[in-house]
């Protein structure tokens, strides 16, 4: 695991964006060989998306040969609803960049046969050659995507009923009216994300600190599903200082001591203008 600790949310977002930028450019994607990514939603990755849009606008990266697969989507929420994950991705990322719409995959929570939709999604991922880099976040209860506590660590894309904690946490997006929050979602499984070549988890804020502690300093446990990534060969945790508040001082000092090594991954930052 790489534990990359930046001072604040903005710096963490920027580091993550630079990393993604360098990975895409180094990969040299083309029409014959797309760079495939898994994408998250929520307040944590927002800053990272903003930076990526900035890099696109300045002509330093292109998403023309990038295929994306979002982690999750609510069931039964109209696609055009401002809180749907389709809306989030459109407004905060897709509409600002040059990705081919046919390559921007998001689960459809409004189909008749949800099971079939999940299976088709797994199929699409494997047809795309698997995921190069899966970017994700972490819930306060340590979940990745909607793999709530108790989810199988080898699970695949499926329908999940949301935990009460998650529903309460989401209420703020639905006018604090619990009755309006969706209760089910389609989500990639822990196993699905584990299949990616590389995983990058963004964790910022003190409210995520305990989950981070459980994810990396305790054992692999299906009650804290992000802990599964201890068994992935290439996991990156990108966090801010606040997210480390529940870690041992020793852990934090060790990884801060490695920052000069980690920073070589984002410095120099590459650009397609140089190609």
């Amino acid at each position, binding site marked *: 695991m790489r534990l990359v600790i930046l001072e604040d949310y903005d710096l963490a977002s920027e580091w993550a964006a630079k990393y993604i930028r360098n990975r895409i450019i180094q990969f040299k994607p083309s029409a014959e060989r797309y760079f495939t990514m898994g994408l998250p939603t929520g307040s944590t990755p927002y800053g990272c998306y903003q930076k990526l849009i900035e890099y696109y606008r300045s002509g330093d990266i292109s998403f023309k040969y990038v295929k994306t697969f979002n982690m999750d989507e609510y069931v039964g929420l109209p696609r*055009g609803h401002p809180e749907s994950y389709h*809306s989030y991705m459109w407004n905060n990322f897709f*509409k600002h960049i040059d990705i081919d*719409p046919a390559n921007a995959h998001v689960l459809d929570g409004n189909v008749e046969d949800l099971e079939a939709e999940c299976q088709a999604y797994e199929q699409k991922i494997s047809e795309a050659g698997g995921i190069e880099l899966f970017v994700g976040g972490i819930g306060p209860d340590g979940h990745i995507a909607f793999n709530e506590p108790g989810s199988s660590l080898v699970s695949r894309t499926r329908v999940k009923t949301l935990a009460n904690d998650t529903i309460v946490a989401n209420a703020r997006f639905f006018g604090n009216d619990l009755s309006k929050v969706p209760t089910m979602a389609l989500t990639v499984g822990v196993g699905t994300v584990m299949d990616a070549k590389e995983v990058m988890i963004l964790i910022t804020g003190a409210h995520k600190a305990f989950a981070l502690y459980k994810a990396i300093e305790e054992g692999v446990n299906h009650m804290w599903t992000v802990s599964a990534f201890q068994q992935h060969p290439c996991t990156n945790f990108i966090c801010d200082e606040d997210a480390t508040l529940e870690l041992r001082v020793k852990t934090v000092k060790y990884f801060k001591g490695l920052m000069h090594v980690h920073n070589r991954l984002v410095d120099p930052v590459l650009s397609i203008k140089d190609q």
Partner: protein
Amino acid sequence: MPSNKSVSDAPITQFINCRILRDHCLQREDLWVRDGKILDPEKLFFDEHGYADKRVDCEDSIIAPGFIDVQINGGYGVDFSQACEDVSSGISFVAKKILEHGVTSFCPTLVTSPLDVYHKVLPQVKVHDGGAHGAGVLGFHLEGPFISVEKKGAHPEKFLRTFKSSGLGYLMETYGGLDSVAMVTLAPELDGSQSVIRDLCQKGITVSLGHSVANLSQAEEAVQHGASFITHLFNAMLPFHHRDPGIVGLLTSDQVPAGRTVYYGMIADGIHTNPAALRIAHRSHPSGLVLVTDAITAMGLPPGRHTLGQQVIEIQGLHAYVAGTKTLCGSIATMDMCVRHFKHASGCSVEEALEAASLHPAQLLGISHRKGNLDFGSDADLVLLDDTLNIKATFISGEEVWRK
């Protein structure tokens, strides 16, 4: 990489680098158009995997819905109330010229005229969409002849009429037909007007109160029967009085049926209404304000004498008088001048000034589901403006029809 054509073959245009008027505020968003209508780009992206065939760089302009003028009597030497053999070419001529002022739809207005004028003019023009040929015609605005003799303004007295019998039959006799009529201005104190108002509203024709000496309760009764507009507020009606505010009182009346709005036309040319009066009206009822030009034949022409209806008028600077008097008979301000003057005089926001010339007239005429806004599915009638609200370009159904 344009759309996969699963919904439509038509090309898609994306207006970029602009600020659009949507949901009552200027937002930095791109505007997408297909098939002459505003397109939802999110639906295009997810449902059709499509995007733009063509991008138009707006150079940071403001994009507003095209202006709608519901009271315009002519311009550039053309007088709609003249019984020409070919009035439709006169209307077309003006329709093309007003694109320069950002007007994409209008109601050609006929002042009080003899019956043969109505019978000759009305059948010649049908409601039709705009395009490169000019702004769209939404229907005639018939201002008269059922108006008050005391408040005739520039209208010729000998052609004023009263309701000799009830029902639409008498109206049909007067006008000859109502098919291409969008609005009628009448004085509600005339006997028999209330049933006429009801009948017109039922036919989908907007009824406006004007050139009248009605008191507030007569005006309120008219509104309850369906009247929804006031023709050039303050002009040709009783002045506001604190014990009987008259028609002006409709702006704050509590007798307006729930869910309905009374709109009022303002000629914001700096001449027809004192800026302080404009502010009083705007502040008391901002959502009802509709900018109109009430432009006459001489709009666009140099100073001098010209014909309006059956009378002669005289231009002096920005003023147009009934020749030999000091009675105002219409304005020569253009719609974009009115928008700028309204913003300046009232201190309102850019959004409010633009909506007074687009959204409000569309709401008045009951066409806001397709005009007067930039909502998805609305007609792509647009104006590009700079920050001082000068028109840079005009579009109808997504096609550029005029550029500065």
